């Protein structure tokens, strides 16, 4: 891990990166305009060949939160068995970030899921549409301002009676 950190510090402005460690999890926080550059550097120069997951967090109502959304990339280098969390942030109204599909093809469905649940738009994604929820769904349910029981989506079906079936 120390090697990766040194490599990153040698190639990026020190002010842009914020490193931290918690229970063997190594994390680096970057701004959204640097994240694509950082990810491609991690893949090409640091051998992080596997993208495990992309996920997001909504920090609405979170104490002392500076930004609305956190976007987290979970990377693994299979050679060195090294794991790294790359985290960036996004704020409304501009919830767009470049897609990671050109780097890792597996990012395709992960980004679709984040889009489905949080409404974060990945630019240049080959097929950005809902993956879990029905296409007609209009809200982003994992946002904290969305009510747990929904806005009536689960009740909007036609009722079939005995006589009709």
């Amino acid at each position, binding site marked *: 891990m120390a090697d990766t950190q040194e490599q990153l510090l040698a190639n990026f402005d020190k002010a842009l990166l914020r490193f931290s460690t918690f229970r063997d999890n190594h994390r680096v926080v970057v701004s959204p305009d640097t994240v694509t550059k950082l990810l491609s550097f991690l893949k090409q120069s640091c051998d992080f060949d596997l993208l495990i997951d992309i996920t997001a967090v909504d920090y609405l109502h979170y104490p002392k939160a500076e930004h609305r959304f956190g976007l987290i990339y979970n990377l693994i280098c299979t050679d060195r068995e090294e794991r790294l969390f790359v985290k960036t942030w996004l704020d409304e109204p501009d919830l767009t970030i470049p897609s990671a599909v050109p780097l890792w093809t597996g990012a395709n469905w992960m980004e679709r899921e984040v889009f489905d649940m949080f409404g974060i738009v990945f630019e240049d994604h080959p097929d950005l549409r809902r993956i879990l929820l029905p296409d007609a769904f209009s809200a982003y349910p994992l946002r904290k301002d969305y009510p747990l029981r929904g*806005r009536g989506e689960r009740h909007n079906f036609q009722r*079939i009676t005995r006589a009709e079936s």
Partner: protein
Amino acid sequence: MDMNLPDNVVLTKLDPLANWCRKNSLWPMPFATACCGIELMAMAASRHDISRFGAEVFRFTPRQCDLMIVAGRVVMKMMPVLQRIWLQMPEPKWCISMGACASSGGIFDTYAVVQGIDHFIPVDLYVPGCPPRPEQIIRSVIDLQEKIQKEGSLSGTEFTERERQHRKRALQDVLDDTL
């Protein structure tokens, strides 16, 4: 009717005969979406053995079934599928809502989970439990057999007829109230 019938001949009406045939050869359609499906399989397997009650022929096409067992939670994306499968089943047909989730949404009181399938399709029997034991499902099948024996008719259109009568009564009630 005074006829000298031999001991091995029984007289009955056509409706109960049809019901008797139907109730002892139910063909379930397993709509198993969650852990209830495992208990449903246990019910069909040798230890509990639903074939003792003539309902062992599980078919995975609704067109060959007359008993839908909804086992597990139904999410809103699945509801159109459930309704379509129900409509594809030929009359006469019955529905068992198995487990807490199918009957009420269970612990999943969220935007995506339908809070009881009986909001959207007709249900004959509810089986409580999370998940119910195979004995409970067998009990529900026996109860359903009782219901079929009591209510069925030869034409198999009793549900339509019952609904029609029900609507007629409801309309009469409204007229009585207004006049």
